[in-house]
């Protein structure tokens, strides 16, 4: 029975724009971006949890909140039972070693003025309490580079000297340097070619098998999420609309947004004629989300009550949750 590694409860992360006095007097006043609005989910150890959604859905912000890169408004994030948001510095240090992340921008996440070797060595130097022998340090760095199929000569080079796929792999090497048990991968194959992306996916799978890492896989690429993740959640404008095991979500597509999203993904399928559901209109802004169900402005199956009552996540059986008035709890 897999244990809960991460337990997020009622998390809210808001951003504020136009905080100043002048805006209040002359402008429209302060605007609140409800980036993550009351999200609860559980990630089990050893499994991959996929988080999908389009622009403005809050998936990246959710990830950043877990790592305390942005401040949460309210809620809890339990990592191995301890609340990340209220940790004392010592425990926080421990958390920061066990949980790592891989950034979407494979070049931007590396200091352009540091060599790759120093970039990978940085977490290693933080791990050791005493000073590390130069020789040993190099060995460690070289081992990490080999683990991602880069040769040890790369340590002397600068990030801009590498291709996109290689840069991504350096980011992975840095992430695994501290032997983490949890890694969040934010769009790990964005900007990569088909074959380079395949290399990265294979690498991530291999590392998961060898090192027993739990992944939070944030991606807008549904094919990838279907391939990589065991469980998944679909987000829309800061809320989770459907969640469960990946196979259940893809089979049932209980929420109209999930259905439209999956049907919109272009497929190279051999023969099947796909029936794409086209959603009309644009994705609303997270500053002023629609009342009631946030998806109602584009939902092909919208009903009257969707405007006034916000649907809550209900269990459809077997841990498959959906927030839609079409599937009301009995």
């Amino acid at each position, binding site marked *: 029975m897999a244990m809960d590694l991460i337990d997020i409860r009622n998390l809210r992360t808001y951003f504020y724009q136009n905080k100043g006095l002048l805006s209040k007097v002359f402008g429209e006043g302060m605007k609140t971006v409800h980036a993550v609005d009351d999200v609860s989910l559980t990630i089990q150890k050893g499994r991959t949890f996929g988080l999908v959604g389009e622009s403005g859905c809050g998936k990246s912000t959710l990830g950043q909140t877990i790592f305390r890169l942005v401040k949460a408004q309210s809620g809890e994030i339990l990592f191995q039972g301890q609340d990340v948001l209220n940790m004392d510095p010592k425990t926080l240090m421990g958390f920061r070693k066990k949980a790592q992340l891989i950034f979407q*921008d494979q070049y931007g996440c590396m200091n*352009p003025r540091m060599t790759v070797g120093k970039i990978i060595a940085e977490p290693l130097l933080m791990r050791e309490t005493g000073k590390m022998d130069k020789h040993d340090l*190099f060995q460690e760095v070289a081992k990490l580079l080999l683990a991602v199929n880069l040769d040890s000569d790369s340590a*002397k080079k600068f990030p801009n000297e590498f291709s996109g796929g290689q840069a991504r792999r350096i980011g992975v090497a840095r992430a695994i340097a501290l*032997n983490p048990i949890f890694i969040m991968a934010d769009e790990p194959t964005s900007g990569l070619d088909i074959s380079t992306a395949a290399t990265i996916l294979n690498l991530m799978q291999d590392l998961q098998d*060898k090192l027993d890492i739990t992944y939070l896989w944030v991606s807008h690429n549904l094919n990838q999420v279907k391939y990589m993740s065991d469980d998944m959640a679909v987000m829309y404008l800061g809320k989770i609309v459907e969640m469960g095991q990946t196979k259940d979500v893809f089979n049932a597509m209980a929420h109209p947004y999930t259905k439209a999203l999956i049907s919109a993904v272009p497929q190279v399928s051999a023969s099947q004629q796909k029936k794409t559901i086209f959603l009309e209109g644009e994705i609303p802004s997270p500053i002023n989300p629609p009342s009631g169900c946030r998806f109602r402005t584009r939902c092909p199956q919208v009903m009257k009550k969707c405007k006034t009552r916000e649907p809550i996540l209900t269990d459809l059986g077997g841990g498959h949750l959906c927030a839609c008035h079409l599937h009301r709890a009995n």
Partner: protein
Amino acid sequence: MNTTLSKVIPGQMSLTPRWTETLSMAFKAIVKVKGGLLGAVFISIMLLCAFCAQWITPYDPNAQDIVHRFAGPGWAHLLGTDYLGRDILSRIIYGCRIAVLVAFGAVGLSSIIGVFLGVMAGYNEGEKIDYFLIWLFDIVRSFPQIILALAIVAVLGPSLVNVVMALAFTAFPFYGRIARAQTLSVKEADYIKAAEAMGQKPLTIILRHITPNIMAPVIVCLGMDMATMIIWESGLSFLGLGVRPPTASWGIMLRNGYKYIQVSPWMILWPALAIAFAMIAFSLFSEGLRVALDPKERER
């Protein structure tokens, strides 16, 4: 690591390129920029003059030879002599030492103080310290630079050290503003987030991640600024508020040359050319230096 990669990796054991590699790359980069090499050569000449003045000057710069005063360029005195018969060439070379000291001293001091304060302000954007530092920068900057420098030197008394300190004080807000603006954009970068996610201490983040990445515009300014500082020094000395005579500084030479311009144009020509030469040297070199230090400019 709990994987089975336990073999020893032979070969080049370093996390950074060898210093010889770095130097040769830097050299190549400086040469690549138009005029960078020329600037480097000019700077080398100036530094040579500055450090080795006592060995390369044909005459003692203060040795007077009234009989041969106001001489034009000739075999005895390559650039001529001034109103006291002192060899102009030797004075130019010693003046170079003053120029270099002032340029490096004033710019060095102001940039170190300015960048440090600027990064502090930028990293703590929105906090009280940020507001205080911006206020400080603005107050100092609102004084016209020349008035401020004059005032400080007038109070402290003219001397090389005081000139350097005065100039440094007038210039530090300039660097502060640049550093702060750069810091504001750099601190949003993903690699800063990566360092934070690792649990890195703020001071380390400032020194290791932020400061090196804001230096590019600072370095360009350094170069331009050095040229400007030489002009300031000349100006202050010209007004009699710089180094004290009989020290040979280009500014003092300009002042004397100005007095006697009808008698001997050479007295003012050579120091003016020297100042121009120094400005060109620093401008070209600073551009080359910026390119050389930027890893992105390296050949793949």
